Structure formats: C-alpha cells, structure tokens
C-alpha cells in the first residue's frame, strides 16, 4: 500500500465538493423539515407528526413503496432469465445481447416513458389489439392506473436488473454446474441449489437499483400515473414548488430518503450474509 500512500490528497477536491454540495444541503434539508411553520420560525416535529398521522399521506408513502416493490419483482422475474441467457451465451451473441440491454439505459428515461404513453394510450397498440380480437368495444383506460406504472417502471429499470445478474453469473465457475449435473442433479435442481445462491449478490444488487430507481422515478410516475396517482416524488415537488410549503416538502423528502436508505442497509446486510454463506 505504501506505493499509493502519497496519493490521498487527490481525494480532497471531490470531498470538498460533496461536503458543500451534497452533505451540507441534505443536512439543511433535515433542518428545514424540523420547523413547524412555513415561515421557518418555530422548531418542532410537527411536519413528521402531520405526515405520519394522516391517512392520505401514509397512503402516498405506502403506494410509492408498494409500486416500487411490484416493479422490482416484475423486473426480477423477466430480467433474471435474460441475464442467465446472456451469461451463458457464446461471446458473439453475448456482445449483441449486451448492446440490446445497455441501449435503453442510454436512451432518455423521458423517451422510454413516452413510449409507454404511446403504447397504453386510447389509440395505442394495446387498445388496438384488444379491439381487433373483439375483447373490447371502446378503448379502455390503461394509462393513469397503478398497473401501468408498475409495468412501465419495471421495463424502464430492467437493464439495471440484468447487468449485475450477468456479472454475478459470469463469476461462477462453470465446473460447479457441470459437477452438479455429473452428480445427477437435473437442470432445475442445479439452478436452485447451485446457480441461484451463487448469483444472489448480483440479484440483490439489481433489485436494489431497480427499487431505488422506481420509488423516485418522478417522470414515469407523473406521466404514466397521471394526476390521479399521487406518489412521494410528485408530492414533494408539489408541496415545495406549488404550495411553497418547504418544511413539509423537506419532511416528505427525508421520509423518502429514510425509506430508501433502510432498504439499502437491509439488502446490503443480506448480501453480506449470503456471501459468507457461500464462501464461508
């Protein structure tokens, strides 16, 4: 390590930037949330009391976390098999698959959300298909429903699930699979007993990214969910910019931050546990 001992001052500019423009602002936000009135004169926990004792507010929080969870499960169910296929594919096919997986990530999230507005709209392809096969007479409302938000979130965050899964599966020694087959275990048993546990760190990392992305996806939530579906990011924005109620908006932000942070800590702990299980 001595070789790098003298390099540490290089971290200072970045540290200074993050201290001034990330840590201090977040601390200020926390401080603002501890005022009881919008003119910032009286200290108190009134904003948190107001949030946590109101059914509407709790509903907004619950709905946000619930839709995030559903989107994560959906992304996992569809994304894991794709990660598996990409990981065991021959190199040429793997390159193509990686490009297909990465490309949506580099296309604007607004564009990807817009795609869902087109697909699920009254004149969209889903309504068109349903009408063509005679299931519906008039276009049904698909946009502005919770399910639309879940499907759109899962699709938009899908690459974030697949990429860590590919990495984790790529790190598994294929001989373990072969040994399992040779010892008589079938495909499914080998997958459940060998491959799945060994890929758990990547799977959990993917779930974490999708979940964190989903609960704070302002654009997708507002455009696909519309005005009827109030979720935490939009609530925070509305309270700060439209209602000018900074203390309450700050409290909403802190509660969302705490919810995401709690999940991050839980998942990281579970990840460490699974790693010691596998390697310990």
């Amino acid at each position, binding site marked *: *390590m001595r070789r*790098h001992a003298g*390099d540490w001052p*290089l971290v*200072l500019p970045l*540290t200074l*930037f993050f201290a001034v*423009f*990330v840590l201090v*602002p977040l601390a200020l*936000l926390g401080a603002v949330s501890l005022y009881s009135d919008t003119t910032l004169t009286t200290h108190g926990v009134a904003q948190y009391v107001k949030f946590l004792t109101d059914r509407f507010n709790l509903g907004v929080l619950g709905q946000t976390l619930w839709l995030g969870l559903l989107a994560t499960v959906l992304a996992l*169910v569809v*994304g894991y*098999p794709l990660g*598996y*296929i990409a990981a*065991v594919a021959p190199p040429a096919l793997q*390159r193509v698959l*990686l*490009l297909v997986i*990465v*490309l*949506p990530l*580099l*296309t*604007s*999230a*607004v*564009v990807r959300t*817009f*795609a869902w*507005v*087109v*697909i699920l709209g009254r*004149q*969209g392809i889903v309504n068109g298909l349903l009408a063509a096969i005679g299931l519906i007479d008039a276009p049904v409302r698909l946009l502005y429903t919770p399910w639309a938000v879940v499907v759109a979130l899962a*699709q938009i965050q*899908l690459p974030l699930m*697949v*990429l*860590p899964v590919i990495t984790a599966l790529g790190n598994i020694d*294929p001989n373990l699979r072969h040994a399992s*087959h*040779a010892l008589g275990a079938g495909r*499914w048993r080998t*997958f459940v007993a060998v491959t799945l546990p060994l890929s758990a760190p990547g799977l959990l990392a993917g779930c974490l990214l999708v979940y*964190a992305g989903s609960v*704070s996806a*302002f654009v997708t939530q*507002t455009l696909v969910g519309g005005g009827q579906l109030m979720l935490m990011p939009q609530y*925070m924005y509305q309270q*700060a910019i439209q209602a000018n109620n*900074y203390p309450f*908006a700050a409290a909403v*932000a802190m509660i*969302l*931050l705490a919810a*995401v*942070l709690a999940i*991050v800590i839980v998942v990281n702990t579970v990840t460490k546990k699974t790693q010691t299980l596998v390697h310990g």
Partner: protein
Amino acid sequence: MAEAPRGRESRRSRVERWSFGVAFGAAGGLAIVLLVAPTVIVLITSFTNAYSLKFPPPGYSPRWYAALWNDSPEILAAALLSVEVAAIATAIATVLAVAGAVGLARRRETWARLLDAVFMSPLMLPTLALGLALLVLFNALGRGLSMTTLVVGHVAICTPYILRTTTASLLQLDPGLLDSARSLGARRWFAFRTVTLPLVAPGIGAGAFIAFMASFDNVAISLFLSDARSEVLPIRMWHIIEANLDVRAAAASGVLIAAAVILMLVLERLTGVSRHLR
C-alpha cells in the same frame, strides 16, 4: 456452455432440460421484446402523418421532424442548453472523479470506504431530494438560480459514474508498471501521465459518456435548480407530454434514440462501454 458429460440421458432429465430451456427462453425472450419494442414503437409513431399518436399510424411522413426543425425554437434551445450543461458538468466531474479515483483506489481504510460510499450515493438516493436540498442551500445563501446552480447539481450526479469506471480500470492496472516507471526515474506526475492515464483512458471515457447521458437525461435535479429562462430538454419534453401530447415529442424522441444508438456504437468501438456498465 459445454454440457456435462453424460451417458444415455434419462427421460426425466430430458423433460427437465426441455422445461428449463422453455421457461428461461420464454422469460428471456419477453425481456428482449420489452427492451426493444417500446423504442421501435416510438420510432414508427414519430413518422406518422396524423395529428395524434395513433399506433399503427394511418400513414407515414417526415412532417413532424420538419416541424421540429423549422417551427420549434423552444425545443431546439432546450436541447442546446441540455448539451451545454451536460458537457460542462461532465468535464468538471471528470477532473474531480479521476483525481478522487487515483486517491482512493486500492485503499482499504475505513475513511476511504466511507468516502467512496458518499461519492456513490447519488446513484442510489432519490436525486429529487438532492435537488430540493440544493435549492434550500442556494436559497439560504441568497443566490438566485442560474446556469451555475444547475451545473453544480449535475456534477453531483455525474461523478459516481466516472468514479466507478475509473476505479475499476485502475484496479486492473498492473502495479508493477508504475514501479518500473518510478525505478527508471519517472516522477509521480510523469508516470501518471505516460503510464497510468493512457491505460485507464477507456475507463474514464466510458464513465464520462455515461455521465453525459445521465446529465442530459436528468429531470429530478433540473426541476429544482433551473431558473425560468433555462429549460432543459427532458423538462421541456415532460411538459409537452404532460400537457397536450404534441407529436413533436415523438420526433424529438426519434432524434434522441438515433443519437444514443450512434454514440453507443462509436463508443463501443473506442472504449467497450458496455463492459464498463456492469
């Protein structure tokens, strides 16, 4: 993948192989369709000759691309501003993050791991909260919103991408190379410039590219930190889609998709960017 050596396959294991392949193939295929189809549908819709986003379009024409180019100065101005903000923010973030990565790489101390977690936090935490927090800071400082406040917010979200890819490249670097350079008399900066930098350049480039796209795409930060005059492209598009579903949004999306594909293919050749995303 090579198959495990086996003699005559039992009926049960054939069924297993078959059902496993079908289940994973179906789910994986669905994932591919989900990844590709929305983009294709937007591209097709953008060439509609109608006034609505009906799919499939009743007929085709490039009229909305023409409308975008000829009669949409506000969208073009927003696009230019987005490029400008993303370029400045990426440049600043690259300098900060590369220096930070060199300082932190291969360090195991608690402070180094803690700093790393802080620097990576914008990837995980709701950036909308960071946007609001920065707005509170600038209000407290009595600073009005400007291009500067916007860029500051964007630097924070650009940094983690570059830090991650640069650190990964530094860890793959053979430390013996630097030792050789040093023992041959190279000063620290000279060794960095002639040995380290060329070898980690693809990693830095890939990170900077992803950071640029993240900044260009960001709504959460810009929503709070841009003043009335400076509207960035994703927010302009958000307004259009939310308000009246103008078909020009489809044309603008078409341009963004084409730009992403072209940039991606160029950078894949130069830096192998897809490797760095994992």
